[in-house]
């Protein structure tokens, strides 16, 4: 059997806030766990993130949002992925997201929300179980 290509993940910072400690730690932990990781850097719009995801042919997008704009930014990205016909890209996220907002976000198509205090091992395991190459 041919080698399956490695899972590619885009770690994205949508919106205007500069809180990138979590995003960078998750990016590094996933890279160290053997995934191919692309990090957008800060201050990206939903359009820019979806564009990068398509260009880089990623299998999943991990979004970090700590600005309170999650109820706008997450669904907007899901909507754009659908419009571009790439809604098989798995979207997960984390940041400062009130518990009450999580069910609504999951319903809109976010696969998982990791709350503050989640260990990197937990995220790595989740990605292993839930993300596989879209075009092997």
């Amino acid at each position: 059997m041919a080698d399956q290509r490695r899972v590619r993940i885009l770690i994205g910072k949508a919106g205007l806030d500069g809180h990138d400690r979590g995003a960078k730690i998750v990016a590094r932990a996933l890279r160290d766990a053997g995934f191919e990781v692309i990090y957008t850097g800060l201050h990206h719009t939903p359009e820019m993130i979806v564009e990068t995801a398509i260009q880089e042919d990623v299998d999943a997008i991990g979004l970090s949002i700590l600005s309170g704009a999650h109820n706008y930014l997450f669904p907007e990205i899901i909507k754009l992925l659908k419009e571009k016909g790439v809604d098989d890209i798995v979207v997960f996220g984390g940041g400062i997201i009130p518990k009450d907002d999580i069910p609504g976000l999951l319903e809109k198509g976010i696969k998982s929300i990791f709350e503050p205090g989640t260990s990197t091992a937990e995220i790595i395991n989740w990605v292993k179980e839930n993300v596989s190459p879209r075009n092997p």
Partner: protein
Amino acid sequence: MLFDERKLEEIRQKKEIWEKEYKSLPKRDIDLTTISGMDIPPLAIPEDLDGFDYLRALGFPGSFPFTRGVYSTMYHGRLWTMRQFAGFGSPEDTNRRFKFLLDQGQTGLSTAFDMPTLMGYDCDHTRARGEVGKEGVSVSSLADMEVLFDGIRLDEVTTSMTINCTASIILAMYLVVAEKQGISWDKLDGTIQNDMLKEFIAQREWICPPRPSVKIVVDMIEFCVKHIPKWHPVSISGYHIREAGSTAVQELAFTLADGIGYVQECIERGINVDDFAPQLSFFFNVHNDFLEEVSKFRAARRMWAKIMRDRFGAKNPKSWMLRTHAQTAGASLTAQQPLNNIVRVAIQALAAVFGGVQSLHTNSMDETLALPTEESVTVALRTQQIIAEESGVVNSIDPLGGSYVIEALTNRMEKEAFDYIKKIDEIGGIIKAIDIGFPQKEIADAAYIYQKELDRGKKVIVGVNKYVTEKERTIPTLRINEEVDKSQKERLREIKRRRNNEAVRRHLGAIVRAAREGKNLMPFIIDAVREYATVGEISDIFREVYGIYRDPGYF
């Protein structure tokens, strides 16, 4: 020498006996390093002070090197300013919170702006979607600032404003609000954060690249020296460096390196060091590791005094003083078992007071979940009041001074931070160091190492990786009124219709010319905001003339 050599020898011999016993006995599996990974002596003795010279190392409060405090009376003259950072939703919402805090005995205002304001976008810009009023108060024009400070006399409060790449615009608006209240600028007292270097290192809000960003900071320092003598035009900030995951030593080193950067730039502009240095202020984080934090503040004061006197030749003792605000560490709070955060904040606040800070913000227990509710912010303020008025720790100045371990740590942190500063000097200064990503990478490494220590359980966070409870109790959190977006856009539309658009165009044109000619921008920005030119309109000029900075995305 403070200690007699024969006595020291005797102490050393006795220590050996103690050490033998200590080593032979069973001990818990304990990690004798600070939260930053610095070794702590299991027992400090006079010898750890390594040639301790009281007058050189500590001296007296209010005189060089200020290790024991910047003022001779410290908290006996005046308590620290209790300054809770507040801002959310509309200017009306935040104005109400300000008045509430003043009623509760708070002694200074501190303003949080929302992300669009901080990044130079008006509330109606597409980049502002979903963010208006979320992380702070929304301000697009002078009309919003007029509402924000409505009914608050600006000569009766000291105001701190946390804003950086658009600081020049917001300070200009504040000055015009004062004008309209009939208050002359020399009566205004407060601080604007305006520390762009740490933005590139840690907080990461910017418009243009480091060089022009620092140019605008220097414009503001120059302007304030001339026109607002009581104002602190920059608050050199380690807070965000620490929040981004640095060690305590990195926080100390990079903050002072930023300070050196500004002083250098101001001197190159031709401003006399003793004219501006007394107006500089600092802002540090105060984290969980009590001994390390107390030592950090003491080391910071001693280092800055040496830097200003010996490196820059400042003559005025006020130029040597590191006056600082502190905020308890946001990143140390946990979403799990949020009531525990009250205890963390109390310990951190106590460290800040032992550290001799001039002003303090205590975080609220719910800040990992949302912006704080009125109740949680009251508990945070009461924490400071209990320390100040019940605990008795303010009765003796620098009460931990002379503690063997505190003095040893203070010395060690100073040495390690000066090593970093030397490295930055060798790179060619802080701006060059930022250009090559040096502090950014050092911090990212430290953050990653700490996270791995947490994951392994080497470092403990109660309720997160130890003493976890299955059933979490929830606490009420603040919701931002979604109508803010609409009402803010309406006010902006209305202002743009009513203002003298011809005058606005003229004044914006004057800013463009001043920027191209390298003039001090402040007078031009003040004229423009007086006519209700907006944050977005003026920021667009920065983007056009100076270019946009893009995140290199180091991880």
